[in-house]
């Protein structure tokens, strides 16, 4: 007597797969049946994508501008620029300092527990340092605005001047940290497109914040040589960055060059770089030209933050690139 025909035959497996396909099986975006073990596990993601939504890129954008704006206020004070420019730059810093925490708190999974961010001080955690930087910057920005308003209203006592210098200087320092730490925040992670670009990101975010802050001052009417120079320098630098990214296209940067986030990245780069630079060059005498260049740059800066953060989502889903990078030794610090 023969043993019964085994139930687990290839026909039976094929039937199961056919039923699964008909019932809209999700299969990691691959055709099934798929042989595993060809460089990854069915090409399923080996990392988790960032969970952050629109509040975080907007925070990067506003934090960058307000942080650098406080730095501009300090430098302008040092070189005795127009007091109304200094006043506006200080106020931009303070308004940014007020808006930023609201965005971050809204992004938390448990917003009511936002104060837990101040439970620890961990230098090895950029997010911990960022929370403290934001607190410090808010205090310094407030001090700067308060003392400046007092001086403008006639309280010209030495102590008020001294406190104003303190507020402006500390606002500049903490403001620069605020505008640049976000590059460190995403650079020091496991997401390949971020960690491989970790030296570039702080420099780019600072350049972007500077052009944005200077752009806002121009839009408010300060069409002075200083803001024109800063406009040229920042859009010039962003043009160079755009060229570099298009010349060197390693596999890890694929999320920046393909798909919808690739389009976003390209648009942002063109607006911040060549578009605002060319507008500034060929339309430099008219206020409308400088305003247009400023708007181009600001829009590009916002889109760039979005592109970088959302490219992290794609990068987390490229296991074969991630593993190849590790095999090549490029993930060593």
């Amino acid at each position: 007597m023969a043993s019964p025909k085994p139930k687990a035959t290839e026909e039976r497996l094929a039937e199961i797969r056919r039923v699964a396909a008909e019932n809209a099986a999700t299969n990691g975006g691959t055709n099934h049946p798929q042989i595993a073990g060809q460089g990854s596990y069915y090409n399923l993601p080996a990392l988790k994508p960032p969970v952050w939504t629109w509040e975080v890129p907007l925070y990067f954008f506003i934090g960058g501008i307000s942080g650098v704006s406080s730095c501009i206020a300090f430098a302008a004070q040092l070189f005795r620029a127009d007091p109304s420019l200094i006043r506006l730059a200080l106020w931009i810093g303070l308004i940014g300092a007020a808006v930023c925490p609201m965005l971050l708190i809204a992004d938390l999974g448990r917003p009511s527990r936002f104060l837990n961010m101040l439970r620890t001080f961990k230098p090895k955690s950029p997010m911990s340092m960022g929370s403290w930087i934001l607190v410090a910057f808010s205090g310094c920005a407030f001090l700067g605005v308060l003392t400046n308003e007092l001086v403008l209203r006639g309280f010209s006592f030495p102590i008020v001047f001294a406190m104003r210098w303190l507020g402006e200087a500390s606002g500049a320092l903490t403001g620069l940290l605020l505008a640049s730490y976000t590059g460190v925040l995403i650079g020091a992670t496991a997401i390949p497109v971020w960690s491989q670009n970790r030296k570039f990101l702080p420099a780019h975010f600072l350049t972007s914040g500077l052009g944005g802050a200077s752009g806002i001052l121009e839009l408010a009417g300060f069409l002075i040589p200083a803001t024109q120079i800063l406009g040229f320098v920042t859009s010039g630098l962003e043009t160079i960055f755009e060229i570099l990214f298009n010349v060197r296209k390693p596999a890890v940067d694929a999320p920046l060059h393909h798909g919808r986030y690739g389009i976003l990245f390209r648009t942002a780069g063109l607006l911040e770089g060549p578009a605002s630079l060319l507008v500034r060059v060929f339309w430099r005498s008219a206020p409308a030209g400088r305003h247009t260049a400023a708007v181009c740059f600001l829009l590009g800066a916002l889109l760039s933050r979005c592109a970088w953060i959302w490219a992290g989502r794609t990068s987390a889903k490229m296991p074969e690139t991630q593993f190849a990078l590790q095999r090549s030794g490029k993930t060593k610090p």
Partner: protein
Amino acid sequence: MTKTAFLTDSTICIGCKACEVACKEWNEVPADGMDWSGLSYDNTKSLGASTWRHVLFLEQPQAAGPQIADTQDPFRWIFLSDVCKHCANSGCLEACPTGSIVRTEFGSVFVQPDICNGCGYCVVSCPFGVIDRRPEDGRAFKCTFCYDRQKVGLMPACATACPTQSIQFGPLDELRERAKTRVMELQERGYADARVYDPQETSVGGIHAFFVILGEPENYNLPPAPEVPTVYLKSAWTSAFVSAAVLFTVVCAAFAVR
């Protein structure tokens, strides 16, 4: 307190998924979706906020050798129960700004659910893609190494449920020795590509939940050379400080020119 560890041996695993079920039952982990993936018998696909043990089913085109499924078209079928690695130098722990993620007396990495505010930074800091934020809840979750069970002298739920003792639990040093011995044994019996996956030579510094696997780690979505992301801090902060100094100089120059 002695550090405890998991040794998960894929060459013994039968793919029964008792570990997935036991973990879910003991820890009251919510459902994570009822998808038919079409990827062998793996319908879980990866670890996550609501998946703390995940059984992999690798089908490899190999007609002869160890661990071949004897069907009409023979293929090599490997099963592995994946879990949080409880790294010696842990990316999620270093990243956590609230101090929610801590090292327990057993050497495991534990997320304190009453402190976590769901910032999501641990999620992008894990080089193994383990920890995630639970959307409905807002907080981050992962394997607890059954901290509550260990505290009263029990083994974790998955190790207890495993019918073949593919998941072994015990002191870290003892299990590391056991893993080495097991691999030597396997290689003698013809499993030429058997190895221990425990990246001690990287900045992660070794993991407390390590594996005996066949073939390359990539086949299991295990990173061949994981790094704890804190090693990237120095170059990133240096760039920030240098760029900030340059920016300040440029701004001063712009205002000096007037």
